[in-house]
């Protein structure tokens, strides 16, 4: 395989290419299908909440479910993940309760990040899912540094970082890959190439023939994968993970897909690409995998209906739980800035409570424009 070919396992009609299938038990395959469906349904529910004004902002990952689920399935729970803002599936795969994701989107007192970040900027230390930052690309080099630490400490784990095609233009993409190449760090650079960075198409992001090819310049393999084919994604990531674990160093993985929805709940993509997204409807990753499972006699219409009903009910129940909490206390604005609250912050907090009390109503007119 060269870094300009595209790896594919399942063809459009659901048939597997001979000899290309990874050896996965039925149970795992069905778990992957379920995780993809859960990701889709969660996104739909959250977008709905946003439209109803119950959460301020959301970033859907519609059409990118195979990229999330296939890659995460190829990793161990002890591996560290550096997610982007468009990979809710990773959190579901790692077993984070949906109510925690919901609490984050509400920014309420049940949110583990204490309502300090915008929606979808999750962090779950317990699951080795590192805090998401808005600035694009900054976490790519963190993953390299963490992998260097894993190598130093002879840790069996590896690290994996998720970013978009836009992210490949950031300074820290360059440093991240360069450092990792030199250090032979056990890290997977997983680029979800959904062909858009807000309104900027991939042709304006890079003049490279592919993103995968950039790996070669940093001394690592680059592989290009059909990102709507969950088995191909799994296979490429598993091989790269095995390689990293063996001490053979990093891999750049380009997952080709398409950002079907808006960049975020504040974006109107018809302004810059018309109805182009419709062309990708029949390349839907969930549909493709479902066909595969049906061809292999592992899935039926009845199972599909039952699954969707069960997942929806679960999501609704969790949304209720996650939404129930109140606003974070005023104190949370001043804690965690440092290990201990220093005197000037204590003074500012005490003055605030003395002058204004603890009751504050949010501004109903504030709305996030992007």
């Amino acid at each position, binding site marked *: 395989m060269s870094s300009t070919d595209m790896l594919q396992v399942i063809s459009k009609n659901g048939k597997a290419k001979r000899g290309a299938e990874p050896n996965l038990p039925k149970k795992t395959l069905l778990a992957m299908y379920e995780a993809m469906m859960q990701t889709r349904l969660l996104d739909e529910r959250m977008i709905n909440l946003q439209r109803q004004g119950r959460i301020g*902002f959301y970033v859907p990952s519609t059409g990118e479910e195979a990229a999330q689920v296939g890659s995460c399935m190829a990793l161990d729970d002890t591996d560290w993940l550096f997610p982007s803002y468009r990979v809710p599936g990773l959190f579901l795969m790692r077993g984070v309760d949906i109510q925690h994701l919901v609490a984050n989107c509400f920014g309420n007192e049940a949110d583990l990040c204490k309502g300090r970040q915008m929606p979808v900027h999750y962090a779950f230390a317990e699951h080795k899912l590192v805090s998401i930052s*808005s600035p694009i690309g900054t976490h790519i080099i963190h993953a390299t540094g963490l992998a260097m630490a894993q190598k130093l400490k002879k840790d069996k784990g590896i690290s994996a970082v998720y970013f978009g095609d836009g992210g490949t*233009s950031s300074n820290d993409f360059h440093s991240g890959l360069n450092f990792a190449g030199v250090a032979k760090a056990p890290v997977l650079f997983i680029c979800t190439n959904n062909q858009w960075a807000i309104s*900027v198409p991939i042709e304006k992001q890079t003049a490279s023939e592919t993103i995968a090819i950039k790996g070669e310049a940093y001394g690592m393999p680059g592989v290009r994968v059909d990102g709507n084919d969950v088995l191909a994604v799994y296979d490429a990531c598993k091989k790269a993970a095995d390689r990293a674990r063996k001490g053979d160093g990093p891999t750049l993985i380009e997952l080709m897909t398409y950002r079907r929805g808006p960049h975020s709940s504040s974006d109107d993509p018809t302004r810059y690409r018309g109805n182009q997204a419709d062309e990708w409807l029949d390349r839907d990753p969930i549909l493709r995998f479902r066909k595969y499972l049906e061809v292999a006699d592992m899935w039926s219409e009845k199972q599909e209906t039952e699954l969707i009903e069960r997942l929806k009910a679960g999501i609704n129940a969790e949304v209720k739980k996650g939404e129930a909490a109140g*606003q974070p206390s005023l104190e949370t604005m001043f804690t965690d800035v440092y290990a201990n609250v220093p005197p000037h912050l204590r003074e500012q907090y005490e003055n605030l409570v003395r*002058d204004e009390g603890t009751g504050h109503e949010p501004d109903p007119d504030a709305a996030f424009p992007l």
Partner: protein
Amino acid sequence: MSSITMVQAVNDALREEMRGDDDVVVLGEDVGINGGVFRCTADLIDEFGEERVIDTPLSESGIIGAAVGMALYGLKPVPEIQFSDFIWPAFDQITSEMAKMRYRSGGQFTCPMVVRTPYGGGIRGGHYHSQSPEAYFTHTPGLVVVIPSDPYDAKGLLKAAIRCEDPVIFLEPKRIYRAPKMDVPDDDDYVVEIGKAAVRREGTDFTITAYGAMVAVALEACEKAAEQGWSGEVVDLRTLLPLDEDAIIQSVTKTGRLVTLQEATKFCGFSSEISAIVAEKAIDVLEAPVKRVSGFDVPFPYTLEHVYMPHADRVLKAIEGVMTY
């Protein structure tokens, strides 16, 4: 005259300057067909084409660094940084390169250009879409730092900035991007002079210095103070660097009391400079210690944004403090 928002004012200023000078170019993320995520560069690409309205790859150091190169050649680039919170990859290009080019080359090279970027809170954007970074730039010799507080100034100051011989950081208070509208001249030659503050309300008992979205908050606080019989004067700084010290000293000399107002965190904030200047040059006119109203010294929060942001009642408390000292 047309009645327009600040977004439209920025757009008009860009269009007029691009029409008047072929060397003016716009570059940044999503500034082309999308017209900028806040629509400040809307439709410019239709009139001036892809070569003068450039959608760049996602790299802020690339955007500013490329603009520096263009400016060295003689173009007048007006790069946009989508949110000022994302300006930091370009900090080196701004502070080490753009700001120092003239000085380090003995005046042989210059890079006049305008870095436009929305800043400030009030839009539920959490800490990466809300910060006020002005003090990082006012700490850098060689930079001009401008912040308009209404559509009239946004247009006039931006046009002046594009014609300025020095590099300008042009911070746009996004909270008031779309409201309120205001009558703004259509005349090509109208500019607002850089380096001059404006008195937005005259008063005799206390002075408030403010800029950007905080000017409206200062005015609201003055209304409330008037109910108690206190007469406030509001000085809108408009240009932070070089600062119109005379306007501040003049006002404080008249009123004898000073409240400074900013959204940014307090410690080493721009207001600290104002209070130091007044202490050095006019301490004898003060009848009360200066009070600084600002954001708290914490990262900008999400849910508690409305607590973090200075509001009129918090300013009133400071006014009470200087009036009853």
